[in-house]
């Protein structure tokens, strides 16, 4: 067994070599999906910018479907799987009990992802991320999603098995470190998500194959969002775990009160998933009480959890910085924080962006009365780009700057690109998401090829101010895409031609 490990020269942690390989392949797959999703993003952006209106309607809706799946599901879950392997092995000086299972999971996810992208790009699955029945895609599309989900569930099961092994073989003392604990909570949320996914994707697959005669659309909506929104809650939990990791790596910070932080993660586990209700607030069939209890994350208790993390992470950084001597005035600790470190910059912008742009709008849009005025408008799209992109994606980009030297053992190819990327990306998405939200306030719909309604039966015109915000969305989006491109190019270059670290 001894040859299966190496000792990290920087951290002193034992790295299980088969686990390390799995971390690498999942991280690479993640970035490939980000690239595909990002290219789609550019083309979609240039289409919804009315002055350019690049794609025709067929390709717009196809790429919109692909963009959502490659980003919300593929990029993020591949990256999270890499994170799960990291948290259950490297952070615990532990081994993966069954690397072959890890490879099965990986292949299932890759094959599933390939089926999904293929069917969507050839036009057999122009159903949007939600594939709301009775919109129907080819059975291969649903099969692709099912395979991807089974692969992810396999990797998650393997993660839990690794935790059991670590405890049995006493590779660590006391409680799990907070990062692994947070990832464990994310994994629990993921099992809820993926089990619900199976529960409706399997019947829907059978329906698309002509075996089942009917799928009830409202039950589908309820079940879909248990996958669709809950998957984003995995991302919240994983993102927060990554914040703790980056805070420690970049400033040496430690959680000030583990009880507080872990309680917050537990509140996530219990209550964060029910906010799938956000999508159902103006649906028939569900009662006001089902809507109120669920959309509020059960009395906003999961929101309390986010507010705890939003306090705890900056607080622990402040304490660590003050210990280093940055004690002048109220904010020297922040001014003298390592802003030139791309991981730190990414983490802090992610925290601020997730909180102020994504999180607050999620909670406010997630009320029935505001949903009446905002449901299915572009405001919703602005909200979730604030959470998933400005929040989770940027945090994941940030930790990459440690994965590359520590796991891939390559130097970052370009320090300049690394330093600029979080600011371009963060700034771009900030503008983009806010502009979308303003546009949605004028009623601009989401998932819509032509808001000028050219060729519609009845002429319709939005308030012209909305078009200013459409253009602003375009500009912010371009800035974000530049930032994203810097990250992808830099990461790919580092992994393949970066200087090897011995």
């Amino acid at each position: 067994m001894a040859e299966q490990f190496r000792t990290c020269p920087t951290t002193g942690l034992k790295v299980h070599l088969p686990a390390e390989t799995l971390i690498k392949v999942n991280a690479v797959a993640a970035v490939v999906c980000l690239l595909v999703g990002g290219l789609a993003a550019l083309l979609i952006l240039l289409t919804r910018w009315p002055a350019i209106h690049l794609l025709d309607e067929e390709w717009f809706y196809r790429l919109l479907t692909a963009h959502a799946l490659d980003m919300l599901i593929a990029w993020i879950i591949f990256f999270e799987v890499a994170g799960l392997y990291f948290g259950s092995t490297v952070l615990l000086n532990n081994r993966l009990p069954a690397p072959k299972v890890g490879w099965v999971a990986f292949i299932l996810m890759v094959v599933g992802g390939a089926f999904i992208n293929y069917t969507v790009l050839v036009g057999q699955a122009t159903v949007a991320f939600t594939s709301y029945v009775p919109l129907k895609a080819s059975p291969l599309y649903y099969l692709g999603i099912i395979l991807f989900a089974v692969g992810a569930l396999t990797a998650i099961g393997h993660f839990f098995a690794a935790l059991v092994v670590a405890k049995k073989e006493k590779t660590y003392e006391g409680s799990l470190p907070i990062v692994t604990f947070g990832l464990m909570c994310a994994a629990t949320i993921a099992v809820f998500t993926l089990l619900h996914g199976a529960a409706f994707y399997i019947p829907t697959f059978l329906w698309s194959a002509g075996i089942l005669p009917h799928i009830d659309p409202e039950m589908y909506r309820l079940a879909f969002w248990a996958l669709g929104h809950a998957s984003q809650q995995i991302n919240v939990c994983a993102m927060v775990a990554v914040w703790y990791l980056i805070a420690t790596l970049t400033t040496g910070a430690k959680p000030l009160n583990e009880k507080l932080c872990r309680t917050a993660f537990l509140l996530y586990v219990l209550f964060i998933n029910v906010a799938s209700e956000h999508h159902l607030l103006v649906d028939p069939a569900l009662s006001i009480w089902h809507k109120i209890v669920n959309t509020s994350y059960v009395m906003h208790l999961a929101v309390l959890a986010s507010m705890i993390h939003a306090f705890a992470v900056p607080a622990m950084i402040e304490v660590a910085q003050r210990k280093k001597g940055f004690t002048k005035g109220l904010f020297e600790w922040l001014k003298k924080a390592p802003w030139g470190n791309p991981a730190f910059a990414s983490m802090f912008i992610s925290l601020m962006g997730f909180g102020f742009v994504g999180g607050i709008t999620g909670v406010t849009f997630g009320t029935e009365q505001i949903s009446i005025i905002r449901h299915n408008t572009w405001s919703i799209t602005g909200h979730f780009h604030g959470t998933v992109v400005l929040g989770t994606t940027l945090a994941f980009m940030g930790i990459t700057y440690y994965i590359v030297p520590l796991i891939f053992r390559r130097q970052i190819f370009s320090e300049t690109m690394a330093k600029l990327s979080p600011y371009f990306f963060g700034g771009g998405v900030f503008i983009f998401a806010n502009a979308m939200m303003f546009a949605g306030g004028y009623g601009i719909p989401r998932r819509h090829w032509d808001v000028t309604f050219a060729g519609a039966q009845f002429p319709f015109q939005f308030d012209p101010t909305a078009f200013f915000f459409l253009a602003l969305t375009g500009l912010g989006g371009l800035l974000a895409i530049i930032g994203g491109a810097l990250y992808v190019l830099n990461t790919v270059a580092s992994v393949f031609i970066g200087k090897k670290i011995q």
Partner: protein
Amino acid sequence: MSITVERIWWRPLDREEKIWVTIALIWCLGTFFMMPVWHVIAKQNTPNESYKVSVDDFEKIVIAFNEKYKVREESGVPVVHPPAGSDIYLAGTGIWQWSSILELEAGKEYRLHISSIKGGGDVAWQHGFSIVSAKFNANFMIVPGYDYVLKVTPTEAGEYGLICNEFCGIGHHLMAGKIIVKG
């Protein structure tokens, strides 16, 4: 880098932590409390009345409704002027159109039933019922097999755009109609 946790990490919160959690908890419970309260004190809330109905039955009703209250046509779409206080019916169709142009009277209440019908197409899709205008936006889901009853009282005369904002296929972005409110 040390990532091991202290053996005993369960300990009381510091003063700042206690203050923050207290403020945050009060805020969270307060905003939650407002959710049911708003249903009592506010003038606009999500409706709580809906029924199951077959797609074909709702289409029968819409056709009968359009026939009974039709006053004219615009671009081939019936303009329908129902009596105040009545049950009125509007559907999104499988050919990406709205089933009628409703002509309502300001200050009067109506029971607006919305659902999805085939209307000449093969399938009844999900749609987004989205009223858009300078002064008023409202969005509700149209789900085939479900009748969603909105109690509506138009307050201002004018023409209100009605678009679909739930992706429903290739004709989605052409789905535009209107609701007319007479003073």
